[in-house]
């Protein structure tokens, strides 16, 4: 059957008509994923896309792999069961800011700390798309929508900080406006053993048009973002370079001049065991700071399903493979003649 190595992007396109609004950022993400898949060298039949409900969660229908469009917010639990049943599948979980952080926040938390070897992509358009435009947990305070005509009175949650507090072993951010960055990020996520969490800034052209343009529009992108690169200093800026320095525990952004001492610049290191640095990065929010994108954190930690398999093996090594007769006859028995 299908051999991962020889597949092309086209092999991952299903025959279903894609039903997002014209101009929706989901198209670019779909293309980036379909483009990434052949590079992973995994046969199609070993790949499963699991999703919740939302515009973004229609994703599995468009992938020529196995796919499960589940119910709202609960995709992580389906992925968990699937991985337990079948640890060698490549499982991709597609969710939205509403699906993953409103109704599904708890499942996301627990999936992340359990560290199943799955890849979670959270399409953050800061709005409920499918239900036609209510504010979401990532919408900014004051956001006016159909359900908040006088403005939302809620403090948004930062998905990266949430993932870090949930003990995620891989945390990254990318954006629909940069196919190359997406592709690189997805490849890194796929390579990570354990749960990979990727926030994707996604443009909902209908209900939250251009929400990220201040950050990622080509014109401002280089000034408003820090593209995290392993071992490289934290620097933004196209013409004038802006560097991130540490003052106590506080990030301070200063224009780099001839005189600046580059050795004082913070250097990106996503592999720190302690979550402090990653949290520090995550606290850099727009518009006060340029927005970090790339891999915030990647650490090694045992996967749930592996630890579980190890227990099965250890138990069988110790007690032999369980036999029903032994099970039935355990405890006190007596005979009737």
């Amino acid at each position, binding site marked *: 059957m*299908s051999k991962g190595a020889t597949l092309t992007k086209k092999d991952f396109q299903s025959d279903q008509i894609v039903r997002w609004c014209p101009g929706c950022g989901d198209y670019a993400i779909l293309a980036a994923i379909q483009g990434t898949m052949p590079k992973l060298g995994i046969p199609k039949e070993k790949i499963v896309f699991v999703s919740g409900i939302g515009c973004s969660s229609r994703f599995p229908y468009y992938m020529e792999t196995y796919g499960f469009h589940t119910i709202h917010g609960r995709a992580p639990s*389906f992925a968990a069961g699937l991985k337990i049943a079948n640890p*060698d599948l490549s499982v991709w979980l597609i969710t939205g800011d509403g699906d993953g952080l409103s109704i599904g926040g708890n499942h996301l*938390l627990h999936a992340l700390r359990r560290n199943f070897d799955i890849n979670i992509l959270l399409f953050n358009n800061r709005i409920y798309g499918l239900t036609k435009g209510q504010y979401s947990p990532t919408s900014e305070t004051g956001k006016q929508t159909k359900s908040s005509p006088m403005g939302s009175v809620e403090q948004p949650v930062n998905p990266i900080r949430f993932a870090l507090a949930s003990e995620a072993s891989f945390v990254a951010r990318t954006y629909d406006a940069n196919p190359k960055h997406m592709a690189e990020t997805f490849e890194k996520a796929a390579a990570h053993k354990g749960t990979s969490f990727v926030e994707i800034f996604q443009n909902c052209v209908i209900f939250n048009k251009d929400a990220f343009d201040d950050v990622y529009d080509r014109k401002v992108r280089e000034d408003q973002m820090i593209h995290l690169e392993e071992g490289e200093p934290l620097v933004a800026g196209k013409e004038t370079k802006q560097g991130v320095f540490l003052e106590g525990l506080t990030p301070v952004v200063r224009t780099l001049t001839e005189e600046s001492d580059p050795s004082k610049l913070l250097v990106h290191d996503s592999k720190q065991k302690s979550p402090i640095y990653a949290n520090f990065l995550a606290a850099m929010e727009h518009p006060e700071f340029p927005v970090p994108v790339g891999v915030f954190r990647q650490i090694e930690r045992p996967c749930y399903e592996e630890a579980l398999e190890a227990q099965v093996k250890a138990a069988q090594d110790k007690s032999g493979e369980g036999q029903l007769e032994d099970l039935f006859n355990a405890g006190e028995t*007596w005979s*009737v*003649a």
Partner: protein
Amino acid sequence: MTEAVQTRQTLESATIRFAGDSGDGMQLTGTQFTNTSATLGNDISTFPDFPAEIRAPAGTVPGVSGFQIRFASEDIHTPGDRPDVLVAMNPAALKANIADLIPGGLLIINEDAFTKGNLKKAEYESNPLEGNGLDTFRVVKIALTSQTEQAVAEAGLNKKSAERCKNFYALGLVYYLYDRPLEQSLGWIDKKFGKLPDIQEANKLALKAGYNFADTAEIFSDTYQVPKARLQQGTYRGITGNQALAMGLVAAAKLADKPLMYGSYPITPASDILHELARLRHFGVRTFQAEDEIAAMGATIGAAYGGAFAATGTSGPGICLKSEAMGLAIMTELPMVVVNVQRAGPSTGMPTKTEQSDLLQVMYGRNGDSPLAVIAPATPGECFTMAIEAFRLAVTYMTPVVILSDGYLANGAEPWKIPDLADLPQITVSHDADPATYQPYQRDEKTLARPWVVPGQAGLEHRIGGLEKDNIKGNVSYDPDNHQLMTNLRAQKIAGIADDVPALEVIGNPDADTLVLSWGGTYGSILTAVNQFNSDHGPIAAAHFRYLNPFPANTAEVLAKYKRILVCELNNGQLDVLVRSRFARETSSFLKVKGKPFQVSELITFFQENQA
């Protein structure tokens, strides 16, 4: 064992209730008596009844823990309505249980515990041992605490630990009363307390001392023996419903050569299934303690999709949470088992008490027309066979199957004849499909099941989900006629199971005019009451449902034979809704919601009243 033995009365059956504070070890005492009696060859049935709190306040009525056991030389099916003997370790235990003791019953009381403080905690205004309130009983007052302390003195425990042996002293008394040997319990103590020699010693001393005191002091005017029952030949063990259910799930998976995945969130009274299964990693069992019941259900569906034998277990409030995902399981037509160990509701209700009030919930508690199969074991031991049956139906028909157990079955024990592996049903599963012709919703002509293809199978990639799908191809479909078709197919598929399950059996006197209907865990009481009614009062027939959805194929035919239909259930009329709506028949119901099983006597009374 001199005179006394010669004058022992022979009984066909006896019922004892041990009652004391939660800290008094009554569950242990009951279990010891149970095991010894089982080994002697009696048929047995037990009913443990304990407080909701881990350690309810000592000495209070809500803190009372009880364990009732009935043992017999005949076949029995219930732990007995009311005890013949009540052991009351303190005033609260007396207060909570005395109303149940039969008139003339034997009441064994720990006098030492009737202190002012304890009487107050039990909210007694005056000491019930004084006055004549207990005159209708044969009262045996014993200074159980102090006699135990004396008896175990030589083991050298401190006062508190010494006192704690009093349950074994009490057990010794009752062993003498019913002529049971001490060996099995002595052996158990050795095994359990081997590492704590002083406690081991003390408990053994207490047990023997109790026995000997009863013998020498001749405190019982009558003593008894209960000969062994004519049980079927074989090897037996005691088993609770939860244990049996766990074993059944494991057995089903083994029989199909599949791994078992059990996803669950702890909840009374279902948690023990999780505990039992968690110990069975060497059987390839993957337990998953989820963050809540929704996730447990999701993981179960995910595992079923992944090709495992997947099951989840919970109690009523947990089903509320699972219900949305259960709808998805129905829509995606995946095979799995959902166990509901019912407890008294609504809402949190009375978590440690039994009830049968989730039948309509599992039938109808989802949005849309969403039929699934529902079965209910009738006895603790049957939880084993019905767990296997549930998986058989699930994989044959590609459907979730609900098992309705209840608190009474879950914690109640009965002797279980260990099955021969060869007698267990074979469960065959195939994931085969031909990529050239495979369609996700192509159905088997007979069962209407769709194929169970799992991720990893090359060339069969496809997508499923909760949106309506077109039959055969499985693409998302909003086509009006397709939705009608799929709704009908989902219903027909479940309805079709009727022909694949045992016919509804009539027990009692099939030629009677009146048919009693019941279901699930009440079987023992119903059977006993029906038999007794037939011998003492007049003809009555009964039919007990183990299959609730669909009903067995012959149900209409059975019902049609009877003039009068009585429905007995531990809820406010739920089987009744199903029966009436299906067969449009008038019925009369005996409905009980007291957190307790039926008493045989109340059933008999109800039969009498309705035998017009």
